[in-house]
């Protein structure tokens, strides 16, 4: 798994690439939670994620919970097909706020 962090319009954009699995999810979790230290609006770009497992999904859930606790905003953008499938199977596609693209996520409050 690779990642990239950008700041735009006062939001933090985290773009993950590759596989978020048991091996990489602890790192993904740390990255996501750290984002809330200095910004309350976080958009996760999942367009480059080729595989995510339940531990990766758990990291996303934990970030969502952290955002709610801190009155922050957390959304998923450009969700790749494999990721969308897992979210559907986990019945979490309605729990997260999903946007087609990062731009749309930035335009809207999460």
């Amino acid at each position, binding site marked *: 798994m690779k990642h990239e962090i950008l700041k735009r319009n006062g939001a933090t954009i985290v773009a993950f690439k590759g596989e978020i*699995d*048991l091996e990489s999810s602890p790192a993904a979790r740390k990255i996501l939670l750290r984002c809330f230290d200095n910004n309350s609006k976080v958009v996760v770009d999942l367009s480059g994620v080729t*595989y995510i*497992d*339940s*531990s990766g999904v758990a990291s996303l859930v934990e970030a969502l919970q952290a955002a709610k606790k801190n009155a922050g905003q957390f959304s998923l953008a450009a969700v790749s097909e494999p990721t969308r*499938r897992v979210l559907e199977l986990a019945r979490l596609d309605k729990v997260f706020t999903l946007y087609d693209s990062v731009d749309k996520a930035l335009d809207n409050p999460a």
Partner: protein
Amino acid sequence: MANIPPGGDRRSPLAFDRRKTAMVSTHLELLSKMSGHLAVTLNLEETIQKALDLIVKFVQAEGGALFLLEEKFATLVCKASAGPVDIRGIRLKSGEGIVGQCVTNNTSRIVKDVRQDPNFDQSVDESTGFQTRSILCTPMTVNKQKVGAIELVNKRTEDGLFSETDLLMLQTLASAAALAINNAHMAEELVEQERVSRELELATEMQRSLLPDTPSDSFPVFGTNLPANEMSGDFYDFFQLDDGYIYFSLGDVSGKGMDAALLMSKTASLFRCLGKTIHEPNVLLATINRELCETAIHGMFVTMVCGLLDTKTGSITIANAGHEPPLIHARDGTFTALPASAPPLGIMSLQAGDNGIRAETFHLEGGTLYIFTDGVTEGSLEDGSRLGQAGFQDIIRERRDLPIAARIEAVVSTLSNTGRKRHDDITLLAVEDARPELRNTIDSVEPVMVARHTFPARAEALHTVREVVNNACEACGCEPEDATDIIIAVGEACQNVVRHAYKDHDTGDATLEIYCKDGILEFRLQDSARPVDREKVKPVWPKELGPGGLGVCLIHDIMDQVDYLPPPKDQGNLLRMVKSIKRKNSNET
């Protein structure tokens, strides 16, 4: 022991004491004798006659009679009589005569001279010619409930009078007799109950004999009926016709009692009888309907499916009148329901044809047809939830490779071993396409191992495992959507081995084997860790989202079948996951 009658010697006080002692022991002797008699006989008439004879003899009366209350305590009927005239059968109104007074007021009486007593009813003496002089009478009660009375007449002593001692004696004996009568009554009821239950047993036996015998293993039809009570309102039947045809039927009569059972017997007989000559299932149902309507029992009806299997081609022609839709389980794993085309039988006139009972013809193509009553789909599981169509399909799907009898038995045992009282009969019939040439093609396809991969149970190894699964899916011609799902499920299963089975301190290898057979992929994941707690690996959607519980749910959601097999060498865990796949470039769906 000498039988010294009371009042026989009244000369000296010493003699009186002797007499008293002797009397007490005679009392006891009589009581034990009576109890002995009363204990061995449970026949009411015999019981009371014996009791009365003993009492009359002992109290030294010329005669006696025992009356029992009948007709809701309105009449006293003489049931036993001792002495020169037999008055058995005479009836007195309750309250009439000295006996009637004793019973009504629940008091005993010593009447020294009946001519002085206004209550004395002379009519009996007049009709028998017997002359009553004195009377001793006491009522009989059991648990404060009036039973009747015992009357003794004319003491056989010089003065011909009954004493207080005689009365005391009679009262003691009467209560023993009352108890015996009560026992005999209960025994009679018991006999009656026994008779009814024996009759029910015979009826049950008779009804079971209407069901067909268990066929041989290779026979393509198998049925079962498990009644909730003795009698069943469900039935199934099948029999062979010429040219390799098998007629089969299953029905459910509305209601549950004996009336339902009798209507079931009638319908089953009609099917067997008319089916020999009417070889079109919808015409057969229409004919049975006509018969049932002609002799309609108010408000009762029958839902019924019947069909004809051509064992040479595997084709089935079926008709359904108001019955829960039978299911076709195709070889590709899909289920198709066959809804009823007509209302239940026994309600209204129905014609065979497009406007009435339709016949449908289809090919089983190696699949199996299941017909069942709502006792199956509405049957309760251990946790109280209903099995439902989905649950039924799961049981069948998991056992698709077993013989039909084993599949049916699995459904029945799931519903009957719940520790719960069943309220409905369970009836199931399976019809399969068991053509030998088909069997050969199925059996000739041995499961082929397409991959075997051993990996260290560590997170870093999971990427390669997923690649192995992906390649295997591709090799088996799996559609990409199925492959994506399978990778998710197998990935989660492997992840669980890494995370849970070996925990942190304990490391080892795991082996994944992938087999392919006939559009079905089977994954066997073996580890050598401590056995997992099966309760914890059941799919329960977690309230608090953690990766572990979620993973198990994903596996169960994606796979058709997930279970633990006994591991080889009794070590570790062997998880099996089965998924039937859509294949590229194939017509099978």
